[in-house]
């Protein structure tokens, strides 16, 4: 921009570090909805993390499949029991743990793949970039859910680890495009030219200059990605091809009560509610993060 930049002195007294990250976090926390979302999400995460300590019963225990099955919510079982007489509250709590874990791990896989792919394509440019992008276009044209269903139906009885990997392998396409776009723009930033002028190697530029400036879109994608995976996993488990029984995930619980949705309403309501809450808070935070980083750039 031609013209004069403002020339104000920074305050001379020592202050807390004003890293762009700290600033970003502070800015987000200013919004009321973000604070509420963070609070609610925090509780859910805490519940999941402390599952073994909080859950009133063993989530897989089937104490009395005759007398205690299909009980509506009561004091002893606040979320009721399922057809196998398992306590739904405990299952929902363990479900939180599992679903969140799957969401986070799968997203980590996606992040790694997406960032690597996008950064290499963007930085290399030219023919390699063009080729990689065409491959990506092809991959993007396949609907994720159908792809997952196709794969998981062909391989039933998958371990959770394999599930996480498949979820991760199918979730990086969009992010890599965003990353590539950012890298393309950053490649020509003057501070990158400055680093080249200092003699920085391509590796150094990628790792020390480009990647740190990609944090914002990555964090946004990660937050929204976790939400997306949670919904996917729930859907797959509901279809019976996700998390294998008897492990508790939100989708599983809904699936257990699927035959008698109307009578066993607590089996759909509670896990469903938790899921909606989790996904909503993640989305609110993700959007807030995106707004904050878009406003800055």
């Amino acid at each position: 921009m031609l013209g004069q930049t403002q020339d104000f002195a920074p305050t001379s007294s020592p202050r807390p570090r004003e890293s762009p990250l700290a600033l970003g976090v502070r800015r987000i926390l200013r919004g009321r909805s973000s604070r509420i979302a963070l609070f609610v999400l925090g509780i859910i995460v805490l519940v999941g993390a402390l599952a073994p300590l909080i859950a009133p019963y063993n989530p897989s225990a089937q104490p009395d499949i005759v007398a205690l099955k299909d009980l509506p919510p009561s004091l002893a079982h606040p979320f009721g029991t399922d057809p196998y007489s398992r306590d739904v509250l405990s299952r929902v709590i363990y479900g939180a743990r599992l679903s969140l874990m799957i969401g986070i791990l799968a997203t980590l896989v996606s992040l790694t793949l997406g960032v690597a792919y996008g950064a290499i394509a963007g930085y290399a440019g030219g023919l390699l970039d063009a080729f990689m992008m065409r491959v990506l276009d092809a991959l993007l044209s396949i609907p994720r859910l159908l792809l997952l269903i196709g794969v998981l139906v062909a391989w039933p009885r998958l371990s959770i680890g394999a599930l996480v990997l498949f979820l991760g392998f199918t979730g990086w396409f969009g992010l890599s495009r965003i990353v590539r776009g950012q890298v393309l723009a950053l490649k020509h930033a003057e501070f990158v030219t400055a680093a080249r002028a200092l003699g920085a190697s391509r590796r150094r530029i990628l790792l020390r200059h480009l990647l740190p400036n990609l944090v914002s879109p990555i964090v946004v994608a990660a937050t929204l990605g976790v939400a997306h995976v949670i919904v996917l996993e729930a859907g797959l488990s509901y279809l019976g091809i996700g998390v294998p029984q008897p492990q508790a995930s939100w989708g599983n619980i809904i699936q257990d009560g699927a035959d008698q949705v109307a009578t066993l309403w607590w089996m759909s309501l509670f896990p469903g509610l938790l899921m909606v809450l989790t996904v909503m808070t993640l989305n609110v935070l993700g959007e807030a993060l995106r707004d904050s980083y878009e406003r800055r750039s």
Partner: protein
Amino acid sequence: MTAPLLSIRDLHTSFYTESGVARAVDGVSFDIGAGETVGIVGESGCGKSVTALSILRLIQPPGRIEAGSRIEFEGKDLVTLGDEEIRDIRGNRISMIFQEPMSALNPVFTVGDQVAEVARVHAGMSRKDAWARAVEMLALTGIPDADTRARQYPHQLSGGMRQRVLIAMALMMTPALVIADEPTTALDVTIQAQILDLLLGLQKKIGTSILMITHDLGVIAETTSRVIVMYAGEIVEQADVDELFAKPHHPYTEGLMHSMPHIGHDQERLNVIPGTVPAPTDWPKGCRFRDRCPYSWDLCEQEHPPLYQVGVDHVSRCHLAIEPERRNHPHAPLVVEEGVAAA
């Protein structure tokens, strides 16, 4: 003495931001006469652009013009005017030329359309008539083949041409006042010369007043008859252009003039105004230039200086007006150039 065309009294424009209230324009009063060219000079952050935008009520939230400000123009107070009435004035009686012609023009309409639109909106002209007048104005601003050029889009024109388009737009309704906010800063120096020449020529022809806002003292010297120097949201000096350059009173004006390299004047080191402008959210008490001034003394910290009369039609916001002998005893400014031992 005829009544001034535009009369600003006590203009306060503030921005309510997360980091506090920035009093960008903090009590500015001045007049512009008919046919006059008045210049406002100052560096970034002094409030000159905000002043210009305030005149046409172009300040958006979180900024606002504070109550008590008055801008009198053709018998009306622009500050309290209704939305429709102020729109009536913009582009019609008072128009504005901006610094960056590319962002001031809409990229999806031809330049002819954009210039013609002014006449269609304000004079209710028909498409045909407005187009004809637009081409006429474009030719008047020195654009060759105006008819062909009018059919082009902004990105097809050079920076200098775009600025001419903006000038044509500004003059379509022969306004009484044209506000030019750094109209040549983004242009090459040879084009700048053309544009300034054009502005002055057109002014003579049409008789509009011009408020020229710039940071370039050279542009001020060449185009204006009266100069206002702004610093930290206030007017710190005002005088006729000859008087200002011959006898600058305020130490900031002085410092500014001496820190510019002049062609033909050999200087070993440029004179420097050490330190930086204070933040607008926190104007210091007393004189705002005190820390950077080589003449300041304790009065400057205690009392915010008013505008003293220091010559014919020459005012200066500096206590040196009442103790002029202090000018003979300059000292090291209170703020030392960052980290460097006093040179």
